[in-house]
């Protein structure tokens, strides 16, 4: 693409219609536009962007020249216009974009931007207007928007495009790989609609519907088989796992069988001991009860014996009536009547007998008491005999019970000692039962899955046979298959070629960029380009390539180099051989339009850059400050075809004036 002319009308500070003609001669391909800062250099760059893509990076959005805007009266209308004339693929294009501004009572308002217009000159000289639906495509084919930043080089405002955007597609188109790339897409890659699918789909439709149906059934059975296979694999893993576990546990249990037995023993003993302890407790209680029942009497035995002896020796006068006391007599006397009925009056016979009787009764006569006493002793004697025997037997019970407990505790201790540190077999036995259950389940599942799979296989065979006989029968399908084979073959060839070319191009690009870079910058730096065509700076640091810190200047040079390399490469022809002759896939030349290309480089770099630029781009358009140009002119001056300067009248008004050489 080469630019021929830029026309602006009322665009920002450029009042009225102002034109820049761009040098496009091979020898004199540099156009210089001088100006101080803020004189409008950035505006010119934005003019390109706005015309082609409708974008700009102005801070205020109004494009209409403010002087013009101010003098508008109510009802006035004014147009803002940018028009670019360029040549692309040997065709001259005119691209323009405009926006109308209207003044009403209050203020000047912008109307919506008009869609761009594109027209081109046909070989026969006639002008053809590009249909609006195609405009964006056409513009992007001339210069893709993603890459526009490379060619409209706004040094001051540039964010490192080369680092960020995935410009693969755009670069490819620029470098002429799109032909091959598109061919691949059309043949196979584009999933919605491609040649191979289309051809195949003809087959399915033209062929018997049953074949398609069979085909689907086969597919679904196959996918079912896949699922089954996965399930089967999982199930087998489970089975393996459980088998291993089972083996492991069985081994442990086998090794520890004696322990299991001992453990059961232990439990039995513990229960027995517990029960016996309860029984022991009761025995103790009974023993004490028994003891209490008669202890006083028992310990009185020797005393009772001695008492008997003592009393035997003594002559006890015992004449009294048994169990009769002096109280009884006294009461009879008080009653004045005897038990037998006789009257008892003081002084009478009965009375006197009673008084006499008193002598034999306690307290007068103690014989009765003694007699009672003696009898009591005899009574106690008999109980005492049985007392001791009972007590003894209860104690025996106690003793035996204690003995048993002791014995069992000893056994328990021994067993505990034996099984100490050994496994608790119970839990393993339980787990083993559990595992056997799982195993049964999984083995059953495995068998089911295998059966299912066999069913699927049978189904597939059935369907496949039917399918083959259906589809093989159709000549047309055979034909179609052949089409597909050719398409596949062509695709493979293109893909291979593409890949070869692409890596060659990338290598070339990288080395070209490095070449240019090293000419612009003398330092140990290297540039690498990744598969998304992003550019990074490395320092060759012993063995490692590491990303380095950047300075703006360095970045500028890097970006320059990339763009330059791109442009340079774009000019080469990419050829690809077929046996019928060469096919020319060459792509377009491109210009470099730069705003303040030198502002971040030092004097030396300026010179280097100036030297190289005209060599690598067909066309250079530069907006520069006078001071920068003074360094570049000695180097570049002879290549200048057109020269302008921006005459800044005021903050709102600039005129572009041509400098006659």
């Amino acid at each position: 693409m080469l630019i021929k002319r830029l026309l602006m009308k009322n665009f920002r500070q450029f009042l009225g219609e102002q034109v820049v003609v761009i040098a496009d001669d091979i020898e004199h391909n540099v156009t210089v536009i001088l100006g101080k800062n803020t004189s409008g250099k950035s505006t010119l760059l934005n003019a390109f962007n706005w015309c082609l893509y409708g974008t700009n990076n102005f801070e205020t959005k109004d494009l209409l020249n403010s002087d013009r805007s101010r003098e508008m009266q109510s009802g006035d209308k004014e147009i803002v216009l940018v028009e670019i004339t360029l040549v692309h693929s040997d065709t001259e294009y005119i691209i323009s974009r405009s926006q109308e501004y209207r003044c009403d009572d209050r203020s000047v308002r912008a109307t919506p931007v008009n869609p761009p217009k594109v027209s081109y000159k046909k070989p026969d000289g006639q002008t053809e207007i590009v249909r609006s639906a195609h405009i964006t495509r056409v513009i992007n084919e001339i210069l893709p928007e993603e890459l526009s930043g490379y060619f409209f080089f706004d040094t001051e405002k540039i964010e490192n495009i080369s680092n960020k955007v995935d410009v693969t597609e755009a670069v490819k188109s620029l470098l002429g790989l799109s032909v091959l790339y598109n061919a691949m897409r059309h043949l196979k890659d584009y999933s919605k609609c491609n040649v191979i699918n289309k051809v195949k789909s003809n087959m399915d439709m033209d062929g018997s519907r049953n074949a398609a149906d069979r085909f689907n059934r086969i597919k679904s059975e196959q996918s079912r088989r896949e699922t089954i296979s996965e399930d089967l694999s999982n199930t087998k893993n489970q089975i393996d796992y459980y088998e291993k576990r089972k083996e492991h546990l069985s081994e442990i249990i086998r090794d520890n069988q004696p322990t299991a037995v001992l453990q059961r023993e232990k439990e039995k003993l513990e229960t027995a001991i517990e029960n016996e302890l309860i029984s022991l407790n009761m025995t103790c209680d009974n023993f004490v009860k028994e003891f209490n029942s008669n202890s006083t009497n028992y310990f009185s035995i020797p005393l009772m014996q001695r008492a008997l002896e003592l009393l035997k020796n003594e002559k006890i006068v015992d004449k009294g009536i048994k169990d009769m006391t002096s109280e009884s007599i006294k009461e009879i006397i008080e009653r004045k009547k005897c038990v037998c009925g006789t009257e008892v009056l003081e002084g009478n016979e009965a009375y006197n007998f009673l008084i006499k009787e008193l002598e034999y009764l306690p307290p007068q006569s103690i014989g009765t008491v003694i007699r009672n006493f003696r009898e009591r002793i005899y009574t106690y004697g008999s109980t005492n005999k049985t007392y001791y025997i009972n007590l003894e037997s209860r104690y025996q019970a106690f003793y035996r019970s204690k003995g048993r407990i002791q014995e069992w505790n000893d056994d328990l201790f021994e067993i505990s000692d034996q099984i100490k540190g050994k496994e608790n077999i119970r839990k393993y036995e339980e787990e083993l039962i559990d595992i056997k259950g799982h195993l049964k389940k999984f083995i059953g599942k495995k068998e089911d899955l295998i059966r299912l799979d066999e069913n699927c296989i049978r189904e597939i065979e059935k369907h496949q046979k039917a399918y083959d006989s259906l589809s093989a029968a159709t000549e047309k399908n055979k034909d179609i298959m052949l089409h597909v084979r050719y398409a596949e073959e062509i695709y493979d060839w293109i893909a291979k070629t593409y890949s070869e070319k692409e890596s060659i191009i990338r290598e070339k690009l990288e080395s070209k960029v490095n070449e240019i870079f090293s000419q612009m910058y003398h330092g140990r730096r290297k540039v690498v380009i990744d598969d998304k065509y992003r550019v990074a700076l490395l320092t060759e640091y012993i063995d490692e390539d590491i990303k380095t810190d950047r300075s703006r200047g360095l970045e500028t040079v890097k970006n320059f180099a990339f763009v330059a390399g791109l442009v340079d490469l774009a000019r080469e022809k990419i050829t690809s051989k077929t046996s019928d002759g060469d096919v020319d896939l060459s792509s377009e030349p491109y210009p470099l339009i730069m705003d303040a290309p030198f502002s971040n480089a030092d004097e030396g770099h300026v010179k280097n850059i100036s030297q190289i630029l005209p060599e690598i781009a067909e066309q250079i358009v530069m907006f520069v400050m006078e001071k920068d140009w003074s360094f570049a002119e000695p180097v570049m001056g002879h290549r200048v075809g057109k020269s302008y300067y921006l005459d800044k009248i005021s903050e709102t008004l600039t005129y572009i004036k041509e400098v006659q050489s």
Partner: protein
Amino acid sequence: MFENDIRITGKHATHIKYLSNKAKIYERYIDVYMNGAIIGFLYGRRSEKDNDIDDSANILASTLANERLKCDFIYRLIMLLDETTGHSVDERINRAFRDVSIGREDESVGSNMKLFDSYVLGGIEVLYDIYTNGCETKEDLIKKVYKVVKNFNDELEASSLNEKIKEAMVDYS
């Protein structure tokens, strides 16, 4: 006699409580009292009331009523057999049987009861000593009780020891 509440104080009260509530060898305080009397006399041990320790154990008249006859019996035994006061046999018989008649107040009852009580307290001390010596657990107590009874039994049967020796020698020859 043995009609009113009995009140034991001091360390003897503590002992009674131990024997009855802690060691549980004797079911009631009255059992300790009665056994104490016998044991005290058997061992010839008398003791005085303890005024130092502030404790008491009561035996209610109602409880006492249940064992009235037994207490009388024990009282009579001791009064009959005790020789420490220098009384003659006749005097002892009187003391044991005559002085105890119901409703009759006698001057000598007071001193007799004092004697009786001293044996009770002494016996309580003996019992306490026996059943705290080496007795920690319930089982220790059981064993002790049995040992006491068995030893006593053996002593009772010591009279037939000579017979047993004779029998044994016959076997050997």
